[in-house]
């Protein structure tokens, strides 16, 4: 299996997963079920995470397909831009879903309803254009394979970094700011769960979590800008593949602190259950692993 193959496996998850999440979400609103509602938030968050490698492996597929006859570069570029246009609201959906899991607010329902519908439309558009790359049978006869699509966020993002030499260093600074925010909060919340820090209610410690998520958000945006500017440097590097795999599991572990009740226990001396401790220790290790793979990326994995 190569990364192009992985793209074929992952690229159905955003549309299908979003459909499943949306179905659960609607059912929870109609049936007034809080459990179902939380389940739909989890689905939205997980789909938002999987959408990231779905996008990244697309670039690996483009690399494999380049200069092949019968494959339209314009179509691939149109698919890529459509995918980026869908990825942006997809990540926002995931972020709002996580907020709703962390601390439920009524506005999150309206925001998720709006975002998930918009994302589904844009995702379906990206999927349709993507399908046309290798499936001419789905193109309606007598029509152009694709109409030029606008806007082109993937091309615009790449141009932003390539045309302005100061953007890359600024993104590097912000990537480290995001790292500090995320890692600091991950340490505090998980060390409380593990019992190294005591005398503070886990509910109070978890109020810090959105700052860690903001750090993750900054790093997804800046990381994506690096990737847009030099995709082959990353898709052709196995360390990057592993960094993304570990990062996604690490991000998944950020669901764990939202899972106990609404926002954890209010008792400053309460002990966390052993399962929560295992996940907390794992979460710290995973994020150290992400930093390790990120730093070693230029030294290992490159051909």
């Amino acid at each position, binding site marked *: 299996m190569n990364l192009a193959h992985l793209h074929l496996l992952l690229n159905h998850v955003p549309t299908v997963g979003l459909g499943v999440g949306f179905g659960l979400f609607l059912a929870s609103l109609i049936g007034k079920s809080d459990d179902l509602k939380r389940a739909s938030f989890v689905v939205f968050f997980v789909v938002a995470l999987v959408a990231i490698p779905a996008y990244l492996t697309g670039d690996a597929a483009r690399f494999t397909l380049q200069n092949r006859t019968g494959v339209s570069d314009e179509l691939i570029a149109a698919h890529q831009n459509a995918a980026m246009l869908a990825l942006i609201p997809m990540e926002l959906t995931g972020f709002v879903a996580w907020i709703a899991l962390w601390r439920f607010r009524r506005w999150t329902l309206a925001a998720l309803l709006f975002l998930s519908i918009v994302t589904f439309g844009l995702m379906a558009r990206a999927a349709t254009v993507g399908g046309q790359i290798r499936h001419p049978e789905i193109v309606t006869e007598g029509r152009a394979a694709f109409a030029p699509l606008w806007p082109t966020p993937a091309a615009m993002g790449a141009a932003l970094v390539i045309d302005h030499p100061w953007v890359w260093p600024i993104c590097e600074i912000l990537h480290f700011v995001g790292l*500090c925010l995320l890692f600091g909060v991950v340490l*505090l919340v998980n060390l409380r769960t593990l019992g190294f*820090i005591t005398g*503070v209610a886990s509910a*109070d410690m978890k*109020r810090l979590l959105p700052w860690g998520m903001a750090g993750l958000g900054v790093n997804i945006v800046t990381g994506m800008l690096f990737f847009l500017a030099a995709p082959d440097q990353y898709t052709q590097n196995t360390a990057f593949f592993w960094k993304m795999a570990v990062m996604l599991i690490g991000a998944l572990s950020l669901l764990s602190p939202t899972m106990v009740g609404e926002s954890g226990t209010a008792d400053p001396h309460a002990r966390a259950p052993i399962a929560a401790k295992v996940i907390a220790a794992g979460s710290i290790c995973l994020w150290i692993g992400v930093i390790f793979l990120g730093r070693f990326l230029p030294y290992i994995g490159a051909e």
Partner: protein
Amino acid sequence: MEDGLVVCGQTGPVLAQLEQTGLATWIRESGVLYGYPLILFLHTLGLGTLVGLNSAIDLRLLGVASGIPLASLEKTFWLMWSGFAVNAATGSLLFMSDATKHASNPAFYLKLACVALAVVTLMRIRSQVFRGRESGRLLAAASLGFWFVALSAGRLMAYIIEFLS
């Protein structure tokens, strides 16, 4: 001007000798994964631990998650000082591997100055704010500012030396 020349005349050979030592040469040229890349990784891990925890404490002092009692955060200081120790050690190794280049980089001195200021600020946060003598908002804001400039200057060192040469 003459003073400057004298200083250069004195420190130049010292720095050159420093980067000619076996250890410095090994870090710079061995190319093994447990050399330069490992040192760089540990430097980043120390940064994440020290600056990450310190920033979270700063946010708490600025009013985020105000339910967290400061006393419960006392235990994080040994972790932060460990991070600092790791970075002082790995930073010294990284410096000696390219001593003359780093010593001629203004961003390096800005970074060192801001790290020193941030560490003094953190000590003051512990001695004053954690003992209830000050509210700490100003110290927290200063701490975030010092770390941001230190981190930015550190990241920009490679670009600035390229720009200067």
